[in-house]
């Protein structure tokens, strides 16, 4: 099957404002990516160009060596790398076998550049999430 299942992406808050047609366009760009338990998927400070949505399994998040949180199905990580070319902000490790769907910068950027409506909706949602993260 080509692309991520729509029902997996519907659980992702980042995509909550997209209509079914827009979601289907993004879904086609995702590729399956599975990790064995214990794999370091993202290393804080390294470069990166992929964003992942978890379909099954759990991952741990740590920042500067300190455990921060656990991620499960429907949650995601690495989204900042879709937008900038900066270093990863946390380390993500597969706490179990982890079935994910990955989207790369190279696939995401042309879609957003070609479709301002999708880009604007994602930007609004990210701004909202930033406010939430700052406790405002």
């Amino acid at each position, binding site marked *: 099957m080509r692309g991520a299942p729509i029902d997996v992406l519907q659980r992702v808050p980042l995509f909550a404002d997209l209509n079914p047609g827009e979601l289907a366009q993004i879904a086609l760009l995702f590729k*399956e990516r599975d990790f064995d338990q214990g794999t370091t998927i993202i290393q804080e400070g390294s470069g990166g160009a*992929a964003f992942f949505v978890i379909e099954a399994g759990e991952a741990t998040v740590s920042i500067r060596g300190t455990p921060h949180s656990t991620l499960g199905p429907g949650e995601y990580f690495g989204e900042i790398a879709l937008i900038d*070319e900066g270093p990863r902000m946390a380390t993500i490790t597969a706490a179990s076998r982890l079935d994910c769907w990955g989207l790369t910068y190279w696939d995401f950027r042309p879609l957003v550049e070609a479709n301002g409506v999708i880009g604007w909706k994602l930007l609004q949602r990210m701004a909202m999430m930033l406010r939430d993260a700052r406790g405002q």
Partner: protein
Amino acid sequence: MSRIVPLRAAVDVAIHGAKAVGLGQALRDGLPVPDGFALSGPLVEAVAAGDEDAEAEVIAAVAALAAPFAVRSSAIDEDGEASSFAGQHLTLLNVATAQALPEALREIWWSANSDAAITYRQKVGRFSRPSVAVVVQTLLAPETAGVLFTRNPVTGADERLIEASWGLGEAVVAGLVIPDHFLLDREGRVRERRPGYKTVAIRPLASGGTVEETLPPQQVERLCLDDAQLAELHALALRCEAVHGPDRDLEWAFAEGRLHLLQCRAITTSGS
């Protein structure tokens, strides 16, 4: 443009990558390269994306090749003279069947988009979409394998440097053993031979994948190449230089007593 061609028909670096074209050229020049296929970057990406037609195309084409397979990336900008992605992109040894290839290709495609590979791309100023072509070859089960530099990559001296160990050459490439070390002069005379400390060998498993086998004590410090094999390697180095030019980095293996060339690329670092 054919998305999958026999290795000997791989001629365009922009389609099949430098590794595939190098091996294809070596085959056309009669060098002893194991047979295989070259898959284009767009085909590998289509397989990674779950395109069922692309998966079927790969499985049907590769059915002509004896399994198991060694699957290596041949990314379009890989193995340039100034930079090498060799350590960043995945190689999968002993993929047991053609039906297992799509999953192997997906893993290799993602290895080129991993954080480690992206960090390397940023470091060398190539933050751009990787095009991941792939080489699929019949996997050998070598008695001995390793690397050969046609010029000493550390000192720049005009001499052959050979590092060798038992089993698959990945034990040498991945640094799992202290390999046997040989220096040959331009005429093939052995200047130096130093046994390594080879406690393990990587062997193919019948079910697919590989295993690290603990070696018996008598093999740990025993030289794994004799004079006749060193002479064969020297002859191979001469032929590779004649075909591809000087300063080559070879991967090779002796399987069932025959010498095979697995890779021939430009040396990327030199002390000279």
